[in-house]
């Protein structure tokens, strides 16, 4: 249970140090450090990175990042099912995520690019032409409200009185 708390803290704050986590949980620092190292070695923790609000980044820097959610229909391969096609799609750096999903289509992918045109080009030239991909449906993201558990809309603010009984 306490081990689970370490990962809960890191999921909330990837920059929490082993020292800080040790204080928070009452665990020994060395034990926390060892547990995190074990997760890193074992591939449980893949990477530490920032959650970026791309809309706000564009407002601030002008950098345009377009995201599309793309549903991909696949004719599964004997023996490999959807895995080989999914792996081929996942290799492209512009593909941010690939999930095998239930429902009408088979794979749901998130793809980013610097313009709609660039993504359209990617779908037409790369994605749709992969063997066993039978159809694609591209949904461009118009606005992000929540990403990776983080609310991207304006926070409510602290309405508490400064001093109260």
């Amino acid at each position, binding site marked *: 249970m306490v081990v689970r708390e370490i990962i809960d803290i890191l999921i909330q704050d990837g920059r929490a140090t082993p020292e800080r986590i040790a204080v*928070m949980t009452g665990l020994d620092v060395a034990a926390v450090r060892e547990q995190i190292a074990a997760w890193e070695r074992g591939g449980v923790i893949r990477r530490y990175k920032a959650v970026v609000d791309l809309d706000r980044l564009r407002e601030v820097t002008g950098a345009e990042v377009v995201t599309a959610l793309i549903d991909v229909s696949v004719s599964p391969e004997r023996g490999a099912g959807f895995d080989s096609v999914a792996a081929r799609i996942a290799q492209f750096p512009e593909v941010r995520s690939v999930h095998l999903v239930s429902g009408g289509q088979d794979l749901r992918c998130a793809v980013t690019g610097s313009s709609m045109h660039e993504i359209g080009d990617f779908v037409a030239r790369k994605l749709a032409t992969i063997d066993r991909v039978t159809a694609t449906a591209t949904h461009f993201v118009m606005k992000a409200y929540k990403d990776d558990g983080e609310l991207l809309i304006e926070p409510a603010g602290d309405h*508490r009185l*400064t*001093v109260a*009984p």
Partner: protein
Amino acid sequence: MRPLNPVVAACPPSGIRRFFDIAASMEDVISLGVGEPDYVTPWRVREAGIAALERGLTTYTSNAGLLELRDAICEDLDRRYGVSYQPAGECLVTSGVSEGLDLALRVLLEPGDEVLVPDPCYVAYGPCVAFAGGTPVYVATSSADGFRLHAGAVEAAVTPRTKAILIGSPANPTGAVQSREDLAALTGIAVRHDLYLISDEIYERLSYTGPHTCLASLPGARDRTVLLGGFSKAHAMTGWRVGFLCAPAPVAELAGRIHQYTMLCASHMSQAAAVEALLGGEGDVRLMVADYDRRRRVFVKGLREIGLDCPEPGGAFYAFPSIAGTGMSSQDFAEQLLLAEHVAVVPGDVFGPSGEGHVRCCYATALPQLEEALTRMDRFLRTR
């Protein structure tokens, strides 16, 4: 003009107000002076409140409150503490524990009755006893043993006029949790001297060092106890004003009679939201409590590192460090810390004479804010 009620006129205004006025005139104040969660009410509960408004639940409810809510409250108390109350007859939904406390005192006290109250304690205890016609008799506790309420000290304060003992555990402002043994000893005193017990358990879910002891669950306690609880702290619902009073039928019945004529009922939509809090809010409570506990550990360690003695707060979301080493009174310390470093804390003396030499710091604030507050307090201490 004819004179006003002397009991009310004799009651000093809350000492907290002055700090609120100073802090309100400043920017970039980090406030550790609050008494409520920094979380907003979890969305599932807010959504239930919105749905209640959409469904038009804008009317009075029965005086005692929605039966569905009373069922959920009694079921929850039975499941977690094994204390059994009848939803009809022994449970009253109130506008927060504040109303419940007032009702309990008004029902139990005859003019001149004394109520034993720990010192320091929540600011409303003494005034509410006085407003109900009683006299608060303070039993001093000390940071040296974590603000333990000693049975010997309590029993020594009992007189023929003593009618009840009022306690809060976990406590505001100290964060102290009374042990099961001490609560059992307190119950023994109540039995020996035929006293009522009023147990303010608003912070029960915020217990970090072990399972909470519900006073009414102790042998011999239930039939002389008024149990007060609510949603404000655990479910981050302070502004909804909804709590409950559970007591043996004769007490609950009379409390209901006052409530019927004064409050009528607690807010209907708040009661609907509270039902959702009890039926679906457990996961949210656990997440928030785990988070308070982490901040508690970081903050208490930080206070000790900057040289302030701080007894381990086992519950609520307050630390009550000693500032006696500075040689300043708690009022001076709080005022100068606010003026010099824009950190708001509450001087301990507003909670009773034994609170002098301490300040109350609420750690229900984001970690980076807590860290910044500790940095500023450290700087403040170094320049004194």
